[in-house]
């Protein structure tokens, strides 16, 4: 488990990094937090001839900016910093709700959120959040800079539209306007593992607590993040009147996950339905300003954990 031979580059400016990427193109990989890339290299599942370490570029890539529109993060913002940013938590709560589920604290201390987006793992949380919020990634190369919508960014498992010479310099997570609530949860084998199934939900209500939109995106269910729009199922209905179990059944029909060692396809589909039932209610309650769970009946409340006999 030793990497194959590679040339290590540690550019001092983004321009220098882009020159290096342009020069080595397909043979180069960008090293940010290294929490996915380094193990893959150690197992020789990836063997880039050139490694372009961007960790010295904090002045250019280290900004975390919260505006009225949302949260913009540079490529060197670590998960942990974004997770703990109080302003970001207020502006785009879903980001923090999801980040708590990204691996373990030690990995979040080092791993970067933009790096996770660029890695495009269908089992990762943050690509799903970006897709659901309709965010974007800014990519730069010697050819120039472009902004790529989340809907266009992910093209396959572990595959984005980033060119070999491009560096993802920042990402933008937009705030959800109006009376909105979000929720995130996932079911894992062990604490911090990749999810067997995860779900992010955005619910929007009008002033009479009627749904105006309800959108979902699942982790570990599709090759690329897909937004499941259930607005037509609930629009105009007060959230307290919605049959959340029926929404789960609806999702059961809509998703088509694959099975693996840890969860069969059917089990994943089932978990997608369970999470839908739980989280559409939770997101709507947040939109309505009700503490999640307060209005839930006993039969559908999440199981109390860690109780003692």
């Amino acid at each position, binding site marked *: 488990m030793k990497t194959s031979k590679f040339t290590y580059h540690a550019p001092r400016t983004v321009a220098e990094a882009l020159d290096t990427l342009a020069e080595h193109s397909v043979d180069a990989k960008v090293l940010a937090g290294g929490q996915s890339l380094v193990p893959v290299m150690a197992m020789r599942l990836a063997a880039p001839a050139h490694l372009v370490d961007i960790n010295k570029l904090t002045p250019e890539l280290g900004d975390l900016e919260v505006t009225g529109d949302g949260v913009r993060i540079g490529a060197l913002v670590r998960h942990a910093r974004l997770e703990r940013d109080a302003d970001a938590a207020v502006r785009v709560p879903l980001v923090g709700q999801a980040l708590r589920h990204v691996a373990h604290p030690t990995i979040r201390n080092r791993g970067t959120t933009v790096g996770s987006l660029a890695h495009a793992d269908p089992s990762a949380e943050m690509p799903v959040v970006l897709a659901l919020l309709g965010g974007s990634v800014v990519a730069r190369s010697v050819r120039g800079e472009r902004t790529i919508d989340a809907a266009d960014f992910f093209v396959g498992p572990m595959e984005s539209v980033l060119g070999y010479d491009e560096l993802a310099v920042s990402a933008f997570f937009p705030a959800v306007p109006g009376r909105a609530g979000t929720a995130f949860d996932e079911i894992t084998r062990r604490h911090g593992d990749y999810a067997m199934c995860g779900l992010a939900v955005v619910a929007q209500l009008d002033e009479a607590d009627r749904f105006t939109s309800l959108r979902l995106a699942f982790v570990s269910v599709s090759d690329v993040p897909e937004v499941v729009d259930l607005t037509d199922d609930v629009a105009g209905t007060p959230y307290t009147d919605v049959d959340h179990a029926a929404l789960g059944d609806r999702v059961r029909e809509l998703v088509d996950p694959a099975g693996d060692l840890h969860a069969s396809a059917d089990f994943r589909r*089932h978990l997608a339905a369970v999470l839908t039932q739980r989280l559409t209610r939770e997101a709507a309650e947040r939109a309505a300003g009700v503490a999640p769970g307060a209005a839930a009946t006993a039969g559908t409340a999440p*199981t109390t954990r860690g109780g003692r006999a």
Partner: protein
Amino acid sequence: MTTRGFGEPVKRVEDPRLVTGKGRYVDDIGDDRTLHAAFVRSPHARARIRDIDPFEAYEVDGVVAVYTWDDLAGPAAEPLPLLIPHPDLTHPRTGYALARDAVNHVGEAVAMVVARDRYVAEDAVALVKVDYEVLKPVVGLRKAAAAEELVYDDVPGNAAAVSTQAYGDAATAVAQAPHRLTFEWDIERSACMPMEGKGVHARWDRHEEKLTLWTATQTSTGVRGAVSAKLGLDLTQVDVVTPDVGGGFGVKIVHPWPEEIMVPWASMRLGRDVKWTEDRREHFVSSAHERAQLLTVDVGFDDEGRVLGMEVDILHDHGAYIPYGLIVPINASTQLLGPYKPDAYRVTFTSLYTNTVLVTPYRGAGRPQGVYAMERTMDRIAQYLGKDRLAVREANFIQPDEFPVDFGLMFQDGRPLKYDSGNYPGLADKLRALVGWDEFEDFRAQARSEGRRVGIGLGFYVEGTGPGPYEGGHVQVLTSGKVKVATGITSQGQGHQTAFAQIVATELGVPFEDVIVTTGDTRRFGYSVGTFASRGAVMSGSAIALAARKVRDRTLRLAADALEADPGDLEIVEGQVQVKGDPSTAVGIGTVAVLSNPLRYAFDEASKAATQFSGGPVDYSQPPIAPGDKPGLDETDYYSPPASTFAAGAHAVIVETDPDTAEIHILKYAVVHDCGRMVNPRIVEGQIHGGVAQGVGGALYEVMAYDEAGQLANASFMDFLMPYVSEVPTSIEIDHLETPSPLNPLGIKGAGEAGVIPTSAAIAAAIEDAEGIPIVRMPISPSELFDLRRAAAYPEPVVNTMPGTASTRWVDPASLPAAPTTESEDRP
């Protein structure tokens, strides 16, 4: 008296060093001149090797040598040893140091590259061309038993051994019993997975013609014997040293591993230090696994649940080779009996070859499987009779006044299965209180009212520990007053330095802090068997105690001369020899050590007292060393037991299953444990904690996901799910019973494996109790529980299966539609 003696919960003296990164492991040895080895390993589960072409590998800058089987000669080229022969092991097969002309599992070593560093070595490994003729592999117990394909053409039925043991007429007893049930219990593979894998560093000194081998082993003397035999060296030319070892759990008792032959072989050939450090992927595919068994039980019992007859057939998957013999299935088939003695018993095991990594003991070593079959059978007898599960067990217990109990069977040490002592009803009483057995139905009712599902399960076990043949100890008092202790067994984190120092502190009467223990270094102690089967404390602890007693006697005798007193009037307190109760007479044992060794030359102030003109009272009629006596204050002794000593315990667990997601959470875990007299209760509890953690892994998380081609699909810590601390119960409640063993001077029994043995049985029973669905195979994942629920057509929470309550509802397994997870031949 010292407060850190025998029986005290002393904190482990090893830990500050180990947890602050000051441990020294095999990989820490060597310098930048050391050469590094990497191995070409088979990508196929079964193939013939047509040709190996290392040419391209030699082109890599920094490659020193590439070796294949053709380079070997003499004993090194012969098959690896069959370590434990057995009359029933009629078809033993072992591998070679490097594959000769065939490979039989993915990961088998085929060629060795030696290079400047490990990076270069791995580059070159990728360039060694091996031409394979791929054959159809045999994977999974049922395929092996069906024997439509054979792993070895000359091993009919894929069976290395078929072995039967019995007492009484079990078949008749079962047939004539008032009630009869049959079951098939199924346990999946798991593995030891020590945090440090294997590792070997060899240094051949061509001037001294001596080999020093550092290896992460559980038996340094075993490796020394094997390596000297394979490399044609005298035993005196080989020293084997185990530095700190990061866990063993059984896998490191196997020896010699191919790398333990090849690395020193290369060092001798190249005249350079050579090292190899196993990486995690290698550990998954080229070390050893355990556990996989299918156990068929046919049991007859009376109205009280007393087992009148029991017939058991075990299919045991031992992988591609069987160097460690039949230890695991012998353990499973004999220790299945646990704290019970059915009137008649017959067990037959068939040990089967498969094209997978070999199977050798992993903590528990066959006992978890046997206990799983027996304890789950007890559960089902209780269910069938509508009786309390604990009550049925109590009806079957061997009683405290029945010891010793000789079953008329042979145990894994080649000696009678004979329980020396125990108090099983006492265990049950303590467990009942500790877990709240009698209050559980109230808890269940409360939980059910909240929409929650909970269940309780339990498991008892008896574990033969401390098998022989022997261990030894050397205790030496230095002139500084420090006490050096050496024993041959190796340490992998058990806390031997602490526990053995406690024994010596108490036996000798010296401060705990003054005792320094060395283990697993053939330079310090050359006679030993090894660390396995919960034998360290029993064997080396007893030997060290005997040696310490001899040192104490000698110290008192020598001091008696100096103090002109009778030895019987003296005592040793905190390292001072004195007339009983009179500290004014005290002489340090360091001074006694000085006097014990008459000197011609003084090296320091202390030694002046032992020189010839020092002026003490001298009896000129006697020589300085009396006839039959010896210089120095040190003694060696050995302990060789007549039989193993049998520890016991009981676990109970309360689980909660999520009605929606099928997640399984452990709410409470309770252990009652009897390992005789405890040297150090803190260490015993630490052993229990670690064992339970591994048991939880085996029950809920760990599988070896071999596909039909014999590829291990989850050979990394990303997909092989060992429990994190977040998956282990946050508190494990422990109570102790201390039933001394009559077999050894300290009355102790082994404690190392106890935590892992009944865990799968207890957790399976608890899930079954929570769900009302028969749980047959372990481990079980949420995905599999989901499948079982669907198969059982129980969309709603199911009432409990606790016998004796009004809501009992049970489903006959035979009436259930087959679930996908129980029907398929092998796990995905």
